[in-house]
């Protein structure tokens, strides 16, 4: 970023497609008007003109630069407006910001990924990034949980992942519906199914705070060390610049020092799961 760039000013991106992933979740396909690239796990500030902006981690591959995808759950004021947008309009982008997943540190290791709900969005981007370097990885296991089968997003992703060498993907739901023949229960129950070489593995957790909390506790019980667990934190990252203070979590500005942290970095910080 050059010194004279106005850090508060977004650039425009054209909304070219809106994909309905679940009743509450949509993926927005955007073509930026400026050169744009990001590291997987970094986030952007995405704005609806005149309404507001909110932080999202792109769910698309970091290798693809001509367009990006952002998966958004309808949960607040700005996201409600987003869900009403139709292709053809322009949205605003600032970023990318923060520290993403340290993919190179995963080389030579097994990567266990725990995802919950809309937390699969950043994970999908990570999975694309890991697929690009699969020769350098031992194994990638995805365990994903959603409330019901209809809340499960990226349905074709699971079939595709299970066809890729070294990749395994498992799903569970809190409450089954007719026709569901996969696991039922919270996401940590899937951990009983997977075979992991704990001596050579890292874990990634992304999802709602309650799932992150219990996911991390379970991983520690399994024997993961605190610096082998990577957490993607969700706070009120408002400016993305380490200035506005809304995302402070202890000494950290989540927008600048995160959003990806190891559990070791955060374990002494109060209220991380709130």
């Amino acid at each position, binding site marked *: 970023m050059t010194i004279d760039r106005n850090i508060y*000013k977004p650039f425009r991106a054209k909304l070219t497609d809106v994909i309905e992933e679940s009743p509450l979740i949509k993926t927005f396909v955007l073509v930026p008007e400026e050169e744009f690239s990001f590291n997987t796990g970094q986030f952007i500030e995405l704005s609806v003109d005149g309404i507001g902006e909110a932080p999202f981690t792109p769910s698309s591959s970091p290798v693809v630069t001509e367009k990006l995808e952002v998966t958004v759950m309808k949960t*607040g004021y700005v996201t409600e407006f987003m869900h009403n947008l139709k292709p053809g309009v322009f949205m605003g982008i600032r970023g990318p910001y923060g520290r993403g997943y340290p993919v190179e540190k995963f080389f030579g290791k097994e990567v266990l990924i725990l995802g919950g709900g809309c937390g699969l969005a950043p994970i999908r981007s990570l999975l694309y990034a890991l697929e690009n370097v699969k020769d350098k990885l031992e194994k990638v296991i995805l365990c994903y949980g959603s409330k019901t089968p209809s809340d499960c997003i990226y349905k074709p992703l699971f079939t595709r992942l299970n066809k890729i060498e070294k990749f395994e993907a498992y799903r569970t739901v809190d409450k089954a519906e007719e026709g569901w023949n996969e696991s039922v229960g919270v996401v940590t129950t899937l951990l009983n199914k997977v075979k992991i070489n704990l001596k050579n593995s890292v874990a990634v957790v992304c999802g709602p705070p309650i799932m992150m909390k219990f996911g991390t506790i379970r991983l520690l019980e399994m024997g993961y060390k605190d610096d082998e667990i990577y957490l993607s934190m969700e706070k009120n990252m408002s400016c993305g610049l380490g200035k506005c*203070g809304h995302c402070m979590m202890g000494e950290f500005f989540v927008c600048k020092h995160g959003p990806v942290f190891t559990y070791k970095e955060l374990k002494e910080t109060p209220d991380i799961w709130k």
Partner: protein
Amino acid sequence: MQYLSITKDEWDKTLERLLLSYTIFATLRNESGIEYELVNPSNITRISYNKPKPVTSLKTFFLPVRENVTSAISPGKRRIIMGIPNCDIAGLKLLDEIYLDKDFKDIYYRERRENSVLISSDCFGVQEHCHCLTYDIKPYSTSNSDLAVIHLGDLIILRIITSRGKEFLSQFSLVKPMKDQSLVSEIEKEHKATEALLLSSNKGLPGYSETGKLLRNAGDEIWRKYSAKCVSCGACATICPTCSCFLLIDKPGFEKVKQLDACQYPGFERVAGGEDALFEIHRRFRNRYMCKYVWKPEKFKPVACTGCGRCIEACLGRINKNELFLELALDRS
């Protein structure tokens, strides 16, 4: 330190001439105390020198309460801000680190910083809640302001602090190196007297890093006790020379308006999903002090509390943070 001097009459005339090319703000006495005010030819003689801090802090000269941060910068008339106490100068050091950060420079802040000549003022005397020295901040500036001004007898004495200050003074032929060196001892005597007052009025108050250690170990009980009278008005943060949190508000055309915010307001950390780590009032109250004494020092070199005492004066609930710190210090001893 190099000292120059000029007679008070000539200095007042110099300021009047400077009004043609500069906008000047200086500390003037009004009904509510000392305040930064716009200088005009008729109030130059009423400028107040060497009195402790103005009611509001320096920060709003650089971080306006509300501004459009997507509009073009129009360089205005150059500014002189005069009479700044060292607590405000020390506060600016932290704002510089945050807003002139190498990765994300705020161009509006930078423009205002570059456009302003800062003339600090040595404090001769203290106000009830002044405690800068407890945090190792002297009641006079030796860095970060361009010049320091001292009014002694019929003289205005100027201490050169930066090369920019030196250059600024070089345009005035009547400002000459100070001949009478005994005046330096007189200034130093005033410094010592103010320091002695600060020490005696803040006896037992823990230092900056000591306060951080005490807060780190403080239980919920003391936060609940002291926040019982907090009404979340945010006055403490608004008036603080280092609190600079803000909101970004969207306007049509992808414009952004930046507005000063305060962690004492409900919903400050609330996320769209509803989680709010600072939902309870005592958590918000604790947050401000933890930020100042524990968390900011982990990431920034300049102190995040300069001991100006304005938050104590501004509090609607009459909450005195120093009483809280003294209680913690007493409990530990």
